[in-house]
Every structure is written in C-alpha cells, then in structure tokens.
C-alpha cells in the first residue's frame, strides 16, 4: 500500500491549448506543457531531474522532452506503455522515485495528437495476432465497442438507463461551458443526448469522449521543497494502482474478467482510502476518468460513493453537478473539456485545490479524488491543499 502520505506534493501545472489539429509534433506539445509546469512552480530546468510519461506509441519518450528543454541532469526518465489507466500512476511513480532518492523533482506529462495523429478510437490492424485473434475477426475492434460491452452488463444487472448516462453528459457539459480551455462549450440538453447518433448500442455519440491534440504536465517534488516554491502545494495523501484477477493480455482483452459490471476501482478502493486515511465521504470534488459516460457510474460504485448497482441513481438530481453534493469533473472531463488521456483531470484537481478555477471554482474545495482507468486496471489519488 502507498505509504508516503503527504510526503510529496504537486508544485506546478502546465498545459497547451486543446485542439483538433495542433499542427505540431507531439514532442513540441510535451515540451511546452512541461516547461510551463516548471515555470508555474517557480523553477528552472536546472531544478528538475526526472520525467515520467505514458503512451501507446503515440508520443515521445521522456528523454526527448528533457533534451529539447536542455535539462542538464534528467536522471530519472521513464516511459510507461499504458493507457489512461496510468494517468495517476505516473505521479505515484514520481513519488516512489523521490522517496527512494532516485530523483528530487520530477515532471509528469501526457502529450498526444489524439485527433490529428494517432486516433485511439480508430480501430486496429486487420491482421489479428495474439489475443486479438479472438476478438477482431468478429468486428470487435474499437474502444467504444469494448466499453459498451461493460456498460451493457451493468444495465443487465442493475437497470442503468440511457437517461442516467445522458444526465452525466449534460452535467459535465455545464462545467465545460464555464471552462475557457474546453473544446465543447455549447450547452447540451437531455434531448440532444437522446437524439445523438447511436454509435455502438448502448453508446450514443455523446457517451463517447472527445479526441484531442494537446499536452498536460505537473511538477512533483517533496512536500518540504514544495513549501518553498511559488504555488500553494497540493499534497498527495493517498494513491493506488492495480486491478482485479484475470485482466487479460491487454486493455482490450477482458474475456476472462470476473464481471464486467464492475471495474478496477472496486479492487483498489480499500488501499486508496486507507493510504489517505480518509473515506469517500470526505471528498469535496472528484475528477473521475470518463472515457465514456458509463465509466463514471462504475467508479462511483467502486470507490464507495454509493452501493454497487446504485451508480446510475447516484448521478441523478444534480448530485454530481458543480453545485451538488459531489461535484464531478468540474472542467467538463474527457467528454467535454479534452481527451488528454486522463491527465487533464489532475490539472483540474490541482487548480481547484489552489482556488484558481475562476468561474467554475468549487468554493472551499479542500480534498479531491482523481481517478484513471475504466476497465481492468487503473490508478487513483487523493489530493488536498
């Protein structure tokens, strides 16, 4: 279990514009976000000695960013071959490195030309090698198709409805309307949702996250050092990474997973809350990985905000709205802000806890949950100011 409660903090954040066509190499996006994060912390490149990122062979290695920025001693440069499940893992990895003395101040980032370059939702190769030979030949190819299978199972077991999923999309859009960096800011109604095109039943177009070009970065350092830096530190009090049994050979392969109505969150929640020394009732805001509307439902249950099967009902009655009991994805999420593979959730949590979120600021936000992942494995953190 994570045993570094409050020993490290996020001291800086940086991000690029989010767009459909950046017109730039991914490395350039990564470097911009990382440099902004370093400068936001009041540091210069000489103060940084680590870079950690994750990608699906659609980005640049950590060392490429360190090289472009002229970092003299980037000793801890690490890349995870992973999806959104790693969006909190890279921060936990930076903390592990700092605690072990492998680095002092680490920049974590995710950069992608996810719309103009390699599109994760766009399908896979026609030659089905490995485990894919048992999925792709049946036309089961894209992430929306994969995740729709999980959503259906939840509907079968618990009666989760299209109206509940639509309510999530509408609520997150409300937040994006207030967010100047969000890619989708036009107000949305439940009718708009219900009338949006069915892509892969049970998912309509508006159940599915955006595709984005952009990059996000944060600076992680010891709490002691963070207190001497420019910004109010945001402490990492808890963290967890993992999943359940029989996760399969890759993110897509969940043939052997015990029950698709429940995801990784149910398996890491106990460690997460124990490591932070608090429970879900203590959370002020939650930035929950929303590659699809449905993944929020599953994680609300898994992390214990409600009972198993009650996630759909939990989202009703504006409970997850900005003025509700548990504001969720106050930036608009992957559904309406941008799809920077979940790392934009960390940026939003930090800005909220610093009180820098402008018109979408949740007053008095002190404790935030950030989560990453939707299927068999994932990561999460508890942050506080």
């Amino acid at each position, binding site marked *: 279990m994570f045993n570094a409660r409050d020993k490290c903090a996020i001291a800086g954040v940086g991000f690029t514009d989010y767009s459909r066509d950046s017109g730039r190499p991914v490395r350039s996006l990564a470097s911009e976000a990382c440099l902004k994060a370093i400068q936001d912390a009041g540091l210069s490149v000489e103060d940084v000695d680590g870079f950690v990122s994750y990608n699906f062979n659609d980005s640049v290695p950590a060392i490429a960013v360190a090289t472009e920025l002229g970092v003299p001693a980037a000793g801890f440069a690490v890349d995870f071959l992973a999806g959104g499940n790693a969006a909190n893992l890279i921060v936990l990895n930076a903390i592990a490195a700092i605690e072990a003395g492998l680095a002092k101040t680490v920049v974590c980032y995710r950069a992608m030309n996810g719309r103009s370059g390699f599109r994760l*939702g*766009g*399908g*896979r*190769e*026609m*030659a*089905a*090698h*490995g*485990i*894919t*030979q*048992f*999925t*792709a*030949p*049946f*036309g*089961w*190819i*894209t992430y929306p*198709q994969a995740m*729709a*299978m*999980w959503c*259906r*199972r939840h509907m*079968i077991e618990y009666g989760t409805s299209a109206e509940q999923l639509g309510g999530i999309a509408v609520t997150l859009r409300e937040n994006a309307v207030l967010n100047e960096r969000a890619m989708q800011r036009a107000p949305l109604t439940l009718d708009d949702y219900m009338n949006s*095109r*069915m*892509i*892969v*039943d*049970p998912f309509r177009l508006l159940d599915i996250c955006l595709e984005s070009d952009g990059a996000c970065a944060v600076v992680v350092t010891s709490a002691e050092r963070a207190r001497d830096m420019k910004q109010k530190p945001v402490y990492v009090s808890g963290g967890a990474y993992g999943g359940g049994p*029989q996760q399969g050979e890759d993110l897509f392969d969940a*043939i*052997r997973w015990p029950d*698709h109505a429940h995801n990784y969150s149910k398996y890491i929640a106990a460690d997460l809350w124990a490591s932070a020394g608090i429970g879900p009732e203590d959370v002020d805001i939650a930035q929950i990985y929303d590659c699809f509307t449905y993944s929020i439902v599953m994680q609300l249950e898994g992390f214990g905000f409600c009972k198993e099967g009650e996630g759909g009902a939990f989202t009703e009655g504006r409970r997850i709205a900005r003025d509700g009991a548990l504001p969720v994805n106050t930036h608009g999420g992957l559904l309406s802000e941008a799809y920077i593979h979940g790392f934009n959730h960390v940026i939003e949590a930090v800005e909220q806890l610093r009180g820098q979120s402008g018109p979408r600021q949740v007053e008095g936000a002190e404790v935030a949950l950030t989560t990453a992942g939707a299927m068999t494995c994932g990561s999460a953190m508890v942050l506080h100011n």
Partner: protein
Amino acid sequence: MGYNKPLPYPNSETKPFWDACRDGILRIQRCSDCGTNRFPPTGVCPACQSDRSEWIEASGRGRVFSWIVVRHPVPKDVYADKVPYVVAIIALDEGVRMVSNLVDIDVDSVQADMPVTVRFDKVTDELTLPVFVPADGADRGS
C-alpha cells in the same frame, strides 16, 4: 474482391482451435491435472499452474453474457456492408467465455442469458469462424 475483415493469425497455442473450427468442432482447453477448462488458449493453467493440457470438444451451447450492436462501422470501408451487427460475450456451458457474433436474429431482440448454439461460417479456404445463433425455441425477433 476477397475477404477484407480481420483474419486471425494462429500460433502454436491457438492453431488447434482454428483447425477444429474448419472441421466444424468447437474446442477449448482442459487442464490435464486439475481439470479446469480454459479459453483463450494459454500454456499454463491459472488454477494450478500445470503446463499439461488437452483439447476437449465443447458442446457449442451457451448463453449471452453481454452484447453490443455496432451501428457505426469502424473501419468504415471494412464494416459498412455489415452494420448493424451484434458482438456478444458468450458464456459457454463448459464455464468459459468466448467473444463472437450473434447472427440470425433481429439485432434489437437480443436478451441477456438467452440460450445460443454455435454455427460455423466458412469465410475463406483457411478460415472458418464460430458464430452463434439463438438456440431452438429462443425468440429470434421479427
């Protein structure tokens, strides 16, 4: 034009499965030590870690565990002629699951737990795909 959809590339572990499909037989692995059935094929039994296994003939009967209806084709040029189609996770009577297509059914009539049986569709000289159809007596819709 030839078959343009994804083709499985069998390896030494999976070839017996695909070979059997060509003969109209649905095969799964069984651990020779503890008897646990497993699919997809692997080298080691996750229940007892034995590396001894044999292929057994499955009944071909199962139930719909979950399903989706693909309406937007991806890649478009490959699946435009197939949508809407059903992909289902089938829970076989032998206690393992398999992903396949559910065919010969109205796509809006699929139900959880509905009984299904395997059917073998030859798509090329080398490849026969195991697909599933509603079992006798199950509601196929209109």
